[in-house]
């Protein structure tokens, strides 16, 4: 995206430095941070960028879904590869996550999900009841959203060649109104989140570190809520805050829209327990995944109505207006901290590790 300024922004310098991609794949390249962005933008998307007149928005746009433009009909098309350890956890499971992620990628583009496919890769020796429970969870989420699973593929791999169960899903959605992009935020817009940030990630962190907690994954298919919001109108950009959570996703919105997202820290909803656990472990809930939350920008005149509608929906009870879009500094997220200090909020690099001291 052209910035129109002679001086290169920090994000551009970051890109320049990121061109050297390590010659073997590292874990941090899948963690939703800037290392992952670099791999996708500078290698994957570049090698697979094939033009076609049917493509309304292709892989080079790096959006939650691509757009197929058939003239009168516009379709959104997306895919997700899912693996979680453990496979079942408070508030969710691998099965529900896999289809939920696909439904949400379509929903944030303004597309009504109409069909889903799956690919199952099973490890030899996987207990059948795990597969049964996983399929039941997939089915339940699709029923709730009114989306059929219409095709699939199943492979079994030799023991040790894959970890238990990996699911790939793909989904098609139909766009009946405006396409919601991740680059349309305008100065003056309000910034909204549909609920507490970091629930999914922090609940898994609690589980992995053996902390007793009431935290649950926030997994939720968001099409029905999104449908109501689309009917109100005024949404200028949206993203679901999945991998990497709030920080990388809001940064992507700011960078692609080439505006400043100015956010008040005390307005960002975070469960007190997630906040406390984050402080104990040195892990920022703003950089851990959500699986049922949207970050969006809304024209100021519509913001209150959108907020109220979100709050009336079961998946948006803790929605909040957390800030506003400003002109400068372009492409950055500025956070006004609880004590009144100001800082740029950046995309984390890779995996999150607790600090040493």
């Amino acid at each position: 995206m052209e910035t129109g300024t002679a001086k290169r922004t920090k994000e551009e310098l970051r890109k320049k430095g990121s061109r050297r991609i390590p010659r073997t794949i590292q874990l941090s390249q899948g963690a939703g941070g800037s290392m992952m962005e670099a791999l996708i933008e500078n290698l994957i998307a570049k090698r697979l960028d094939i033009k076609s007149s049917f493509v309304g928005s292709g892989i080079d746009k790096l959006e939650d879904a691509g757009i197929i433009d058939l003239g009168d009909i516009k379709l959104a098309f997306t895919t997700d590869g899912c693996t979680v350890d453990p496979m079942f956890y408070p508030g969710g499971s691998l099965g529900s996550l896999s289809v939920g992620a696909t439904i949400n990628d379509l929903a944030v583009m303004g597309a009504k999900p109409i069909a889903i496919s799956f690919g199952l890769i099973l490890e030899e020796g996987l207990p059948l009841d795990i597969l049964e429970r996983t399929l039941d969870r997939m089915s339940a989420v699709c029923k709730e959203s009114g989306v059929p699973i219409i095709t699939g593929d199943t492979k079994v791999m030799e023991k040790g060649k894959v970890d238990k169960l990996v699911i790939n899903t793909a989904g098609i959605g139909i766009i009946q109104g405006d396409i919601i992009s991740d680059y349309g935020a305008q100065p003056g817009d309000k910034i909204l989140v549909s609920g507490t940030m970091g629930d999914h990630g922090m609940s898994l962190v609690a589980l992995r570190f053996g902390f007793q907690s009431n935290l649950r994954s926030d997994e939720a298919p968001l099409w029905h809520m999104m449908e109501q919001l689309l009917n109100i109108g005024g949404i200028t950009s949206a993203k679901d805050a999945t991998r990497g959570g709030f920080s990388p996703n809001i940064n992507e919105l700011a960078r692609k829209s080439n505006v400043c997202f100015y956010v008040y820290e005390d307005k960002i909803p975070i469960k007190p327990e997630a906040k406390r656990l984050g402080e104990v472990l040195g892990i920022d809930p703003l950089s851990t995944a959500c699986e049922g939350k949207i970050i969006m920008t809304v024209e100021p005149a519509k913001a209150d109505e959108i907020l109220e509608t979100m709050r009336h929906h079961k998946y948006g009870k803790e929605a909040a207006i957390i800030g506003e879009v400003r002109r400068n500094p372009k492409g950055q997220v500025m956070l006004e901290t609880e004590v009144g200090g100001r800082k740029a909020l950046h995309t984390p690099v890779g995996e999150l590790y607790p600090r040493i001291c």
Partner: protein
Amino acid sequence: MLEFRDKTTTEALIKEIRKISPENNIKVMHVCGTHEMTITRWGLRGLLPKNIKLICGPGCPVCVTSSSEIDFAIKLVKEKDVILTTFGDMFRVPGTGSSLSEAKSQGADVRVIYGIDEAAKIATKTEKQVVHFSIGFETTVPSIASEILESKTLKNFSIICSHRLIPPAMDYLLSSEDIEIDGFICPGHVSTIIGCEPYGVLAEKFAKPMVVGGFEPNDMLLSILMILKQIKAERPEVENEYTRAAKKEGNILAKKMMNDVFETCDRGWRGIGIIPNSGLRLKDEFMELDGEKKFKIEIRKSQDLRPGCKCGEIMKGKAIPQDCRYFGKACTPENPIGACIVSAEGPCYIAYNYS
């Protein structure tokens, strides 16, 4: 917790700081990664008067670990059939050439753990040799000492002992003629172990204010105010702001355990040089747990800083990250050249992400 983050208190403290702040530049150094996190996390630098400079000293344990130690760990895990454990921050720091993260992606068995007890647990469940790359300051050392005492009978467990001590580094910086520091915020976590007395010696020797500070935003601001008051009254001494956790005498039990297992030695700090008595090594009776002695591996000449990298100058408070020609261009958190841009506690990482 509330009063330590209360905005009204923050504003009152800032007002007091402005009132007492002299005209000239005041350089206050801290030597703790978590202090830097607090400063940047809450955006405190922007709240202070412009002439109060907060400098991030060599308080990030990852940043000061020399390349030779990292090179040794990489060569060990690549060439011998061992499991190498380390803390996450260490994982991506480059040695002379590559990092442990790269070694892992090429097939070496490197595991990120959160406490040394996990490494010992791995050792009890495998025939393989388990080597823990053990870094950290006084805060980390007692837990390592305790595990050494418990695991000394394990035949397949050892550590690469890369521990360092903070007060000798402060002494070294204050002794250097070309480094100007007007006061220290002393590391609260380290002080819960070693207490406040070691800084008292330094305050007297160098006539500089020393305040042991906590980790909430208002802790830090109060510590700065206490330093400014000392400067104004010309009474350099050690004071304790973090009374709720750090005691004058520290943690006697932890100190004893440290002394039982380790002894001091001279050690090189990446980018700074050899600091006398600033390192810890295992005492002779624990020699069998010393990974460097157990696996005699020759490493080629290592290089701490690539020519032009200013990590060392930055940690001494003589340069800022923006002075470095690599910073933000060839050297980024994704593709680090120096160590200071990798750890979330490193001064370059922090400048890159929060300035």
